[in-house]
């Protein structure tokens, strides 16, 4: 709300120093966002539940609650209640009170004085003509919206009713008629809608400079009804803002009386009585309040007298004694005061949030990181040590990103949970995979020339599933990482290592080691949903206890091309977080022999499609019990008869626990393994490399 401090000072005493004024307002919940000390103009951020703050009187009341200074109100005319100048017919209880007062121009109209216009000036409301200015002034002063109709444009009785389907109106400032949502409160005569209640008046009944007879409306409308109409029509006015937060029906005649009082000073004269319809009466809400409970809650000494005094300042009346009080809520506070807790807040504000006691509750014991937290930290240590940076991507994306994956509507990743009201087309699909955003992130960094590219994220994917507990989707927590280009920065000698699928495999292996999990990476054909988004010859699935929990590999060239990545060959890794939360298997240390193991190397030529892993597994399985390990230690790629071949060197570690293993026995075992490999893999093109 934009106000002028000098106007506010007419309603209640204020500190003379600007800093003191600002501190006071901040301290009672009227937060000062801007203060031009020279002009006195201020912008206040009001609390969303305090409709009564949207006027000078409301602000003054709040200040009075703290300072105890009395508030002053501007003068208003007492209105005689009687026969309405236009018959009033109310058929909805969504209008609790409606008044109509006729005012006629009697002499030369004069503009409002600068003092009267000061609140409008501070609120940046342009002066239009005295009737309109007077209604705006009354709203700013008392928080009671009013509206002037040209009385000569009203035909027949005035109805306060709900609109029906297909009904139209021509709101002020609109270029054409609009359909009014059915069920909105409208003010209408026999021919037309005069106003959409609480929101805006209409062109066909508006007062102009030629108007000589005004019908002044002042009313109380249901907040939700006004809010619905305002939102449906996308028309937001000072009036709708006030009604949406709950108006004070006790101010209906005060607000009208203020308009009358102002206009009677500028050439206008009230004619006849004011017609009033509606069922409103003060509900006289009361709340029980225990003095001891309030004192204990605030940890502040309080007695009945002090509570009564402080609550009176805000307009509450207090009855009762001996610590058992009954507090009556004034009409302007029925919207936000229901419980004793609400009264505690009033007392705390009156005393000062920075004055009441401050005590940290006693705590017996702290907490350790949960298993989930600990797992996350361990995984991150692996990734951070390898140079990866954590990033965050959005939880949604647009259809354009899905198209870049090059999948069709039969693909398991085609179907998404969709947002239904996104302001931005880029937020239409709630993401069901991480790969697209990961590659997009690589593309962004490549464009910026950033190297190396290594990043990871803990995120979630959302998968349509009508059988899910929420009937819409399941959420899966995932860890993904992507890398492209050189692994090392500042490399000025030698050939820098590049990010490859093997390196990603190593990352997964290290994560498994860090967590004590037997994460296995097997290059067999994967059923992972991302499988056909990864290079078919450079991918492997990650399994744990036989279940597929992730995938690694090089991003499919089709997708890198879609992202306009010409030279980049990003490698990707993704694991379901819940798999990482499995209990670890502790490492069992086996006492080492004092005798050195005996090492032998065997090199075989392997054609494509025969994996080194399966040969290594075969060697370990077929070797003697005392063959402890088979490691792949060298790769030499070459051609044989025009076919690409790989010479793989396997290091065989033969145990020698007692120190009595003979070289002959080891050689014999190696010879038998060579023969077994020839028998088993020979038909597939594997041969011993001389």
């Amino acid at each position, binding site marked *: 709300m934009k106000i002028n401090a000098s106007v506010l000072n007419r309603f209640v005493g204020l500190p003379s120093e600007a800093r003191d004024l600002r501190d006071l307002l901040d301290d009672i919940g009227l937060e000062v966002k801007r203060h031009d000390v020279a002009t006195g103009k201020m912008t206040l951020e009001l609390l*969303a539940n305090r409709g009564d703050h949207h006027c000078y009187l409301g602000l003054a009341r709040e200040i009075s609650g703290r300072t105890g200074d009395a508030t002053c109100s501007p003068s208003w005319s007492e209105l005689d209640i009687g026969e309405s100048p236009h018959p009033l017919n109310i058929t909805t209880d969504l209008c609790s009170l409606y008044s109509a007062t006729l005012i006629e121009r009697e002499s030369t109209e004069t503009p409002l004085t600068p003092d009267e216009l000061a609140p409008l000036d501070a609120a940046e409301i342009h002066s239009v003509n005295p009737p309109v200015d007077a209604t705006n002034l009354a709203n700013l002063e008392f928080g009671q919206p009013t509206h002037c109709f040209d009385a000569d444009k009203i035909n027949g009785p005035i109805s306060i009713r709900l609109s029906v389907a297909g009904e139209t109106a021509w709101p002020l400032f609109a270029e054409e008629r609009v359909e009014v949502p059915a069920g909105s409160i409208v003010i209408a005569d026999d021919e037309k809608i005069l106003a959409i209640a609480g929101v805006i008046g209409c062109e066909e009944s508006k007062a102009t400079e030629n108007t000589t007879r005004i019908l002044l409306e002042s009313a109380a409308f249901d907040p939700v009804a006004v*809010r619905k109409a305002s939102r449906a029509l996308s028309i937001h006015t000072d009036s709708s803002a006030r009604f949406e937060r709950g108006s004070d029906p006790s101010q209906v005649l005060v607000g009208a009386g203020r308009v009358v009082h102002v206009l009677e000073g500028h050439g206008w004269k009230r004619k006849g009585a004011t017609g009033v319809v509606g069922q409103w009466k003060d509900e006289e809400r009361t709340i029980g309040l225990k003095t001891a409970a309030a004192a*204990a809650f605030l*940890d502040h000494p309080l007695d009945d007298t002090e509570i009564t005094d402080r609550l009176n300042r805000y307009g509450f009346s207090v009855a009762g004694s001996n610590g058992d009080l009954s507090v009556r809520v004034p009409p302007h506070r029925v919207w936000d005061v229901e419980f004793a807790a609400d009264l505690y807040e009033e007392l705390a504000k009156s005393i000062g949030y920075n004055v009441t006691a401050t005590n940290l509750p006693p705590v017996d014991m702290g907490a350790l990181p949960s298993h989930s937290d600990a797992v996350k930290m361990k995984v991150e240590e692996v990734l951070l040590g390898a140079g990866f940076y*954590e990033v965050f991507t959005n939880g949604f994306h647009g259809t354009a990103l899905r198209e870049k994956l090059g999948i069709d509507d039969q693909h398991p990743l085609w179907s998404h949970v969709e947002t239904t009201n996104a302001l931005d087309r880029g937020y239409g699909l709630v993401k069901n995979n991480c790969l697209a955003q990961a590659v997009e992130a690589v593309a962004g960094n490549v464009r910026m020339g950033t190297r190396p590219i290594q990043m990871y994220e803990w995120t979630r994917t959302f998968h349509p599933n009508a059988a899910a507990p929420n009937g819409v989707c399941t*959420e899966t927590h995932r860890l993904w990482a992507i890398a492209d280009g050189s692994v090392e920065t500042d490399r000025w000698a030698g050939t820098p290592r590049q990010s490859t699928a093997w390196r990603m495999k190593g990352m997964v292996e290290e994560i498994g080691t860090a967590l004590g999990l037997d994460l296995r990476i097997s290059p067999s054909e994967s059923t992972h949903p991302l499988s056909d988004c990864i290079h078919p010859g450079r991918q492997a699935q990650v399994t744990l206890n036989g279940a597929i929990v992730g995938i690694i590999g090089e991003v499919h060239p089709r997708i890198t091309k879609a992202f306009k990545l010409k030279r980049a060959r990003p490698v990707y890794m993704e694991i379901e977080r819940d798999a990482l939360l499995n209990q670890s298997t502790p490492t069992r240390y086996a006492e080492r022999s004092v005798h050195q193991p005996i090492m032998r190397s065997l090199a075989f030529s392997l054609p494509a499609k025969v994996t080194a892993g399966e040969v290594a597994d075969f060697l370990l399985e077929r070797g003697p019990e005392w063959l402890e390990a088979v490691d792949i230690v060298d790769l030499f790629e070459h051609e044989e008869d025009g076919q690409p071949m790989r010479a793989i060197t396997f290091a065989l570690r033969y145990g020698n626990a007692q120190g009595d293993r003979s070289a002959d026995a080891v050689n014999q075992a190696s010879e038998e393994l060579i023969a077994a490999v020839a028998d088993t893999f020979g038909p597939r093109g594997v041969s011993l490399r001389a």
Partner: protein
Amino acid sequence: MNVDALLDQFRTDLAAADTPAALEEVRRLHTGKKSPIKSAFKELRSVAPEERSTVAAALNQASQTIATELDTATATVAAKALSAQLNAEWQDLSMPGQATRRGARHPLTEVENKCMDVLRRLGFELVDGPEIDAAYYNFDALNIPEHHPARDMQDTFWVTGGLLLRSHTTTVQARVLESQPQLPIRIASAGRVYRNEAVDATHLAMFHQFEGLWIDKGLTFANLKGLLSFIAKSLYGEGRIRFKPKFYPYTEPSVGVDLACALCDGVGCEACHGAGWVTILGAGMVHPKVFREFGYDPDEVTGIAFGLGTTRMAAQWAGVGKVKSLYDQELAVLHDLHRPPVGGAQ
């Protein structure tokens, strides 16, 4: 037997030896079995008995001199050789280091971890909840009924099936309360939240929040302030803080915590747009309606709820003016947030 001539020859040979190998050769020539001095010792028998002791003494002296001078020369030559080796092996260590450069957690995660470090001391545990949730947990259960103006404060992404992307992590609190665990409840929730807003440098459709909830019998407004003070001082140091009234639908009373501007200490300056204070926390006592919604008696049980805008905290602590850049996956930005700019030789 000319001992002086023998020493002269040794010194001539020693002077010519400037490598360890040449020195060894001199040692062999002048101290070995066939060296002149060893021969001279053998010839002592032929020296007249009255001169033998004098000659023997001279030979012993010469032998000692040879050994000493050989040792000295050996040390000198070794020092020269070492010096030459060291000179030859000089490395330009102004060249960049070659270790694998460590990556970094996102500033947001670092902020969340700091918050949890503080809260774990008070026994808080981190709990999780769905990001796609029912309006009940996001609004209705939290005293934000349909058509309540407070729903405008959080423009919501609705998704198919009538669910929504949570607009705050308070949904997690609602779910915890619904499960009615044993008191006291001390939980924190952190993560992504969504707002259906036009995105610019300072407004995001997705950002992060961090919230806490403490439920027990007898918690008071003074306890709320005590907890908030502890959190604020643990995270921000001993700067001045102040409390101010706020409105959150699910707490009553509601409180905002401001930290005095680091530059002007609350007086007001250009950096803080004259406010003097920066809001760091929103909090309050759990609203009676929320307790009743989940079957608690608000006369028996009270609670403290608080929230931190971790996105803004991360931006403030990292010195990032435009929070959007924290979500752009720009590795250059993340790199620079954790490492000093590359300059000359360190």
